[in-house]
């Protein structure tokens, strides 16, 4: 397993992209360091998912260069699991051709606490359980880079809070490079090593924020609150002046 020394490289250099006449990204530069969690936040429709599609190679940019090294896998908002495969079989997709696949499968199932559900099909699981299976699947085998496209946003609030801890726990056991897209500022503040706040279309990075605090971070951790405040300010959403709020 390369869970200790893994290599990954992911850079965007002067990347611009547009759909027809609509410019979505403009001169975007981004270097994702191995092992870090980069969270992209920004207004909806600003091109967050486009950035992920560029990083995964699903689409090619209109201009600029993208470099990527390592095995990249994506977690989607929902329905990313194959419904005709059981929990075990879905996770095993990432273990094909790996030695000791069986042992690793057991470990992963244990890690996401789904013992006893190995032979269940996705439609027999709750939304949170399904996303946990997705997390286990992308961590399986020798993946290097995980792209996460609002993976928890279809879940209810409490499940979402739990899933953030779950992700941190998984990454402690099996470090990966993560690019995480979300519109949830709390999520960004709790998970990120680095938050990138994106501007409106055409998106550029208008703020970069390093959060050094130890993980897992509680929702009311001062570092998380401080980070949220900064992000909210940057997005112009920190409305505290009661007289002007109407």
């Amino acid at each position, binding site marked *: 397993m390369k869970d200790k020394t893994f290599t990954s490289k992911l850079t965007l250099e002067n990347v611009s992209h547009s759909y027809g006449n609509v410019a979505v990204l403009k001169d975007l530069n981004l270097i994702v360091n191995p092992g870090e969690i980069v969270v992209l936040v920004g207004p909806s429709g600003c091109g967050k998912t486009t950035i992920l599609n560029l990083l*995964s190679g*699903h689409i090619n940019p209109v201009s600029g260069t993208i470099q990527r090294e390592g095995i*990249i*896998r*994506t977690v*989607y908002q929902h*329905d*990313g699991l*194959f*419904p*005709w*495969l059981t929990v075990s079989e879905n996770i095993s*997709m*990432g273990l*094909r051709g790996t030695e000791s696949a069986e042992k690793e499968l057991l470990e992963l199932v244990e890690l996401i606490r789904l013992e006893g559900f190995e032979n269940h*099909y*996705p*439609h027999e699981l709750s939304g949170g359980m399904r996303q946990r299976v997705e997390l286990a699947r992308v961590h399986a085998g020798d993946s290097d880079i995980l792209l996460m496209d609002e993976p928890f946003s279809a879940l209810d609030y409490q499940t979402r809070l739990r899933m953030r801890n779950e992700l941190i726990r998984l990454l402690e056991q099996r470090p990966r490079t993560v690019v995480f897209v979300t519109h949830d500022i709390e999520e960004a503040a709790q998970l990120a090593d680095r938050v990138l706040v994106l501007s409106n279309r055409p998106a550029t990075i208008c703020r970069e924020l390093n959060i050094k605090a130890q993980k897992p971070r509680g929702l009311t951790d001062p570092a998380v609150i401080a980070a949220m405040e900064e992000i909210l300010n940057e997005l112009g959403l920190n409305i505290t002046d009661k007289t002007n709020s109407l």
Partner: protein
Amino acid sequence: MMKSRAFRFLLPILVIIGVLLTWFLISYFNLFPAYAFPSPQAVMMSFREEILAGRLMNDIIASLWRVAIGFVLSALLGIPLGLWMGQHLFARKSFVPVLNFFRFLSPLAWIPFAILWFHIGDKPAIFLIFMATFFPLALATMVAVASIPSIYFRVARDYNYKGIELLTKVTFPAVLPQVITALRVSYGIAWVVIVAAEMVGCQDGLGYGIWEARNGLRLDSAVCYMIVIGLLGMGIDRLLSQLTKLPGVRWGYER
């Protein structure tokens, strides 16, 4: 709850008894002449006669055999063709008009050709079954493939599924629930067509049995064949519906 379960079980039986009773009363009061409307008793008698003569069993086997061969042939060709067309836009664009044309052509229109090309026997009937089921099967499979959510293919790419593995591990299981439904529907068509096919191109089979009964003005025997055709059709559909209970396809019926 108990009451409604018993009800659900009893109601269909009551309806069947009602139908039989209506049949009995119509023939009892001679609303139609007996030769044109056989009584239940007469049909029971002819059942006995056909079974003892061994004709019924022979006809059942002949029909089942033809439907099975024609149906399997069209599944073996139609499903792969559908898979291929579903994956390639140019294939859909080029073949769909022709396939649609043939789909709307009643298979019975092929009867003259079937007999000229294949003479009398199993072959023309098998040909007609094939013509009746091939086009709907291919088209249904194609539509199912073309509407697979793109997310499955993106996931498949992340996990390095390519070529034949992509086809067998992703594309095919993704459409299997719909393919099973298409198989059931086209089996229904096949079973309807076999009766007509055997009326003209065969010397045995359930359809031929009805034709012979008509020629001999033995409508009691025709009714007994009709009952067998209906029951067999239902029975085989029941068997096919067991396919929908396979664990790997349940997801397709539980949305």
